[in-house]
């Protein structure tokens, strides 16, 4: 019973351990069998929350915010800039498998909007130049 309680955390664990940062269908089925859930129930849960992905993702996940404060600081242009720089649209992964670009709801960094996170690292006061700098540093294998 105790283990059943924390499905979300178990999904987090599976995803964190996966090298493609996603929830492999096989693992999810195993998890549901272990707890006596139907796979559909677990699938329902994993697709409800935006931080989980059923599709393999890149090495780094870029989450850029487009809500109120970031929107007022021109985040839309930066999303387009990132899309063209990475050569993929929101939700997609670069061909070299290095980045997946996602939108995020408010990251709570409104005072330094526009903001994004790459994995667990936050970046604020973004400009096109800042983005170049950041993306290049990740490409160089920071």
């Amino acid at each position, binding site marked *: 019973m105790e283990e*059943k*309680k924390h499905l979300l955390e178990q999904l*987090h664990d599976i995803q964190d351990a996966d090298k493609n940062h996603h929830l492999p269908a096989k693992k999810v089925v195993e998890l549901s069998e272990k707890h006596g859930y139907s796979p559909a129930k677990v699938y329902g849960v994993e697709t409800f*929350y935006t931080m989980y992905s059923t599709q393999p993702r890149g090495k780094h996940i870029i989450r850029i915010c487009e809500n109120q*404060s970031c929107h007022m600081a021109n985040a839309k242009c930066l999303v387009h800039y990132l899309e063209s720089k990475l050569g993929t649209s929101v939700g997609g992964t670069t061909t070299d498998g290095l980045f997946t670009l996602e939108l995020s709801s*408010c990251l*709570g*960094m409104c*005072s330094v909007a526009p903001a994004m996170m790459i994995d667990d690292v936050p970046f604020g006061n973004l400009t096109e130049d800042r983005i170049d700098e950041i993306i290049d540093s990740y490409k160089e294998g920071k």
Partner: protein
Amino acid sequence: MKFYRMHVLVAQDTRSIMAGAKRVEEALNEEIRLAGLEDEIRVIPTGSLGFSDKDQVAIAIYPDNIIYCPVLVSTVPEIVKEHFLKGRVVKALAHPMEQKEVTMEERTSENQMNLDVQKRILLKNVGKIDPENIQEYIAADGYIALEKALFEMTPENVIEEVKTSELRGRGGAGFPTGLKWQFTRPNPGTEKYVICNADEGEPGTFKDREIMEGDPHKMIEGMIIAAYAIGGTHGYIYIRGEYALSIQRLQKAIDDCYEYGFLGKNILGTDFSFELCIHAGAGAYVCGEETALINSIEGKRGEPRKKPPYPPSEGLWQKPTLVNNVETFANIPAIISHGSSWYQSIGVEGSRGTKLFSLMGDVNWKGTIEIPFGTSVGDIVQNIGHGVRYDRQLKGIILGGSSGSLLVPEELTTPVDFHSLAQIEAGPGSGSIVVMDETRCIVDICLNIAEFFRHESCGKCTPCREGTAQICHLLEMIATGNGLPEDLEHLEKISQTMMDSSFCPLGQTAPSVLKQALKKYHQEFIEHIHNNNCPAGVCNMNFTEED
């Protein structure tokens, strides 16, 4: 304990770390060691020092009461040699006084209120103590309230004290906290839960984060006292999965609490036991709604439940459950240790104590502020935010988040308290103040909010699922020059239907900014629709499908 003649506090909230605070801390330690001062000066990480709108590292020097900002790795040697070694303040780097007014607690005494309308109770320790060191919290009178509650008060006394303090919930609805506790206590059961709602996801809100990153023990102490009062056995902090630093600091704080006997079995040697753990969310705004949050902890989709039954009688695993916001819990230690009559002396009738706000948008100074209830919105914008940026005209203010309300400049004299704000159909909501200047287009702002809610609607009930999509579509049409005169009526109708018939507060409040915008900025919508003109020049009015 070792004695140091000087303490150097390095701000290490998320933003400061982003600006290189950890490298500055390393450089400080290295330079201090080179200067041979390591036994005299101690470097300590702390929460935000209030310079939250810049990508800059700030440090505070005590007892000298000097703040340096910005501090770069390259400027560290000069500060160490001149100030720490020779005692000469490096004036070029020391921060101007007016910013210090905002950050230094000693300047927030009553007689300074004109200069600085802030009053720090909740943020008293933020920027002063090391949030990862429980001893510093204890030295700042931490866990005294818990001790007082456990040894001098019965659970009923605690509830009575919170009730008399007139503390109201800080999550948005403003329900009297003491009453909620009172409802939860008598419900039978061997297991009772205390949940801290730290799922701060309202766009434009980051005030809870300031507490979690800068003084995590304060809210934990509040939770333990709440558990004692209602007979709680287990606690959860439900926190956004994206708040990595908050999760890390809270976990450290919880681990230390277990080690010091503030959590676990027989707390402080009494027969009161309470277990606490963190539960990270996975990205769903609706989980800020208490029953959706409870479903999420149970490992389900975060959809809200039917109420009643309310959580105090039937919550997590059908057991009695108390859910309060981070800021609400953070108020508790001060109420218990100083008493409810002290707390009642702050603020105004019906709204006691202080309130945190995230101040942002088109103002000169942005960040988290703490004001006593009763301060006017205009005071906040002018005296704390230092006015609208670039000397532009104020257009309006979004108060209380995307699901909050819209204030026009004429309403700025309104005091921030539950009663006065209700008169203009507003409320403190999630605790955010977004200032908009004259260059903002109201249609564009409403569309952005609508897009957010379309994405975040959980889809359980029709008015919200369909309503958010319809509103979004209509606003898109208006913002691209394809709006029709009858669209405004449709927007009005859909908004009202959502407010009346949505299942949970998400759908009920999603159209509130739009509804007020339609009334208060009516002419601007008309301009878009009838004259194909965006007065602020933001919307691309000649957008067609081919574009």
